[in-house]
């Protein structure tokens, strides 16, 4: 039995004629301890899919099950890391994480809870910043707090919803390495949602493309059988990297891409030249039609020096 399973999941938004099917007939099985990346366009319904797995929303048809039990509501079993961090601005790094830990493990003795929180702050290398408020932190540091908070809940499954999309390329690379390192150490089941194919190849065991919406659906999976730890620079030369990259990108740009609008109207491009706006209009006033390309003349003037 699969650890996490989606069966014939569909989700619609809107009512009446405006009703749009966002996700259409998704089927997905994830094994325990697996790292799966779902790659798709923005607006395809990736976040909706994440909310369905998290239990923040219910599918219109089909079911989401975790260890055979249907997902009906959010639970600390499934921790989410949001793209916008979602930290409480008036609480420090420590307090933000403590909020989650105190809620989920209320019967732990205080010392155990504190040690637990400190452990996760250290895991994301934020110990020197433990008393800082989110506004005093950079985007990358905030996202680390968010990752630490999610992991501190000891979830069965970690849901990463475009966690690095808001960060610049360099910070993104650092955090990718950090996610890889943390995942190596405790091998949680992870579902990563991203629009970056390279990020998926770097981190995941399996990549599943989500076609463009509306009626987005999951495409054929691609296994990433590249041994870990993966090095970004070495990957560039790896033929397996090229093959996977090509397969995912061509699916997303081909069959899985947005519907192309085909236009049958005949288009005309007038063959006229723009006017030079530096010449005062009073001087071009004698000519009230544009110059056509065929009418252009090359003139050369000889100047004696």
């Amino acid at each position, binding site marked *: 039995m699969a650890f996490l399973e989606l069966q014939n999941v569909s989700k619609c938004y809107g009512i009446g004629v405006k009703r749009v099917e966002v996700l259409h007939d998704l089927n997905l099985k994830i094994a325990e301890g697996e790292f799966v990346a779902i790659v*798709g*366009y*923005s*607006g395809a319904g990736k976040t909706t899919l994440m909310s369905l797995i998290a239990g923040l929303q219910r599918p219109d048809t089909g079911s989401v099950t975790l260890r055979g039990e249907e997902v009906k509501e959010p639970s600390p079993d499934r921790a989410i890391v949001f793209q916008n961090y979602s930290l409480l601005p008036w609480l420090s790094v420590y307090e933000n994480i403590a909020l989650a830990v105190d809620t989920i493990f209320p019967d732990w003795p205080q010392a155990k809870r504190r040690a637990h929180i400190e452990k996760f702050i250290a895991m994301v290398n934020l110990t020197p910043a433990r008393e800082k408020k989110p506004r005093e932190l950079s985007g990358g540091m905030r996202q680390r707090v968010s990752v630490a908070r999610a992991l501190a809940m000891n979830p069965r499954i970690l849901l990463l919803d475009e966690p690095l*999309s808001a960060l610049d*390329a360099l910070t993104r690379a650092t955090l990718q390495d950090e996610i890889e390192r943390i995942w190596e150490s405790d091998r949680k089941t992870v579902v990563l949602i991203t*629009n*970056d*194919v*390279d990020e998926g190849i770097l981190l995941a065991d399996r990549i599943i493309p989500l076609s463009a919406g509306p009626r987005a659906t999951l495409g054929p999976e691609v296994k990433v059988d590249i041994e870990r730890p993966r090095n970004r*620079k070495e990957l*560039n*030369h790896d033929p397996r990297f*090229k093959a996977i*990259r*090509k397969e995912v*990108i*061509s699916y*997303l*740009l081909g069959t899985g*891409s*947005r519907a*192309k*609008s085909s*236009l049958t*109207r005949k*288009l*005309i*491009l*007038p063959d*006229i*030249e*723009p*006017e*030079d*706006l*530096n010449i005062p*209009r009073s001087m*071009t006033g004698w*000519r*009230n*039609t*544009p110059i056509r390309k065929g009418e252009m003349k090359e003139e050369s003037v000889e100047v004696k020096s």
Partner: protein
Amino acid sequence: MSDYVELSNLSKIYETPKGSAIIVKDFNLRIKKGEFVTLIGHSGCGKSTVLSMLAGLNDVTDGVIILAGKELVGPGPDRGIVFQSPCLLPWLTAFQNVMLGVEQVFFTASRAERREIAEYYLAVVGLGDSMHKRAKELSQGMRQRVGIARAFALKPKMLLLDEPFGMLDALTRIELQQVLLEVWGRTQLTALMVTHDVDEAIFLSDRVVMMTNGPAAEVGDVLNVTFPRPRNRTALLEDSEYYRCREHLITFLEERAHHKQTAKLSAN
């Protein structure tokens, strides 16, 4: 063919209370007519400064810019610009946004002809069905398509692109690079693009100019990209030459871009 665009000994120096801050010093670049050139470098290396001086949006401290045999002074519609964020007027439709410039430079043309120009370019960038939607109703990717159509519709002598796809997600970026290449292929406008995306630089350009880190940035290295056009991304991704180009650029950005700086520091 002679050079169409010439940047000679271009410098940009800001006077500050602590002395002069040299952003760009003695920058030289020649672009042939119909050539697509990309400037690549780290953030803050001055590549956007070069572009905005060429656009006439930033004063030149020293040096000369020549476009089609004339020295450039100030901005003008003979250079079409695609900005990082498309800078559309949100209350106008896509069509009206494009018409804004078209009405200026084609003021002698008939109303029907001006319409045809705007409709042509909007259709070519894939907005045939949604050109009468307001800019604020369009997605980020569609807005950037309007930005591309607006630049081409002016029929400029040259196209300037300042990290045109920097704000888009990875997949939309790929889509729009294709769109840009298609429109560009129809007109073969001389183009200068600034980016820090290695794949984008290789896919679009004839020549990639690598800039060293600022301050006082200069040309560090030049890579000629010889893939035949029209280019196909899938075919390119299989070509080992593509990966050679990619490595060349990545290695420069990771290692050589800093060399000049460290050399300077040790000299002090």
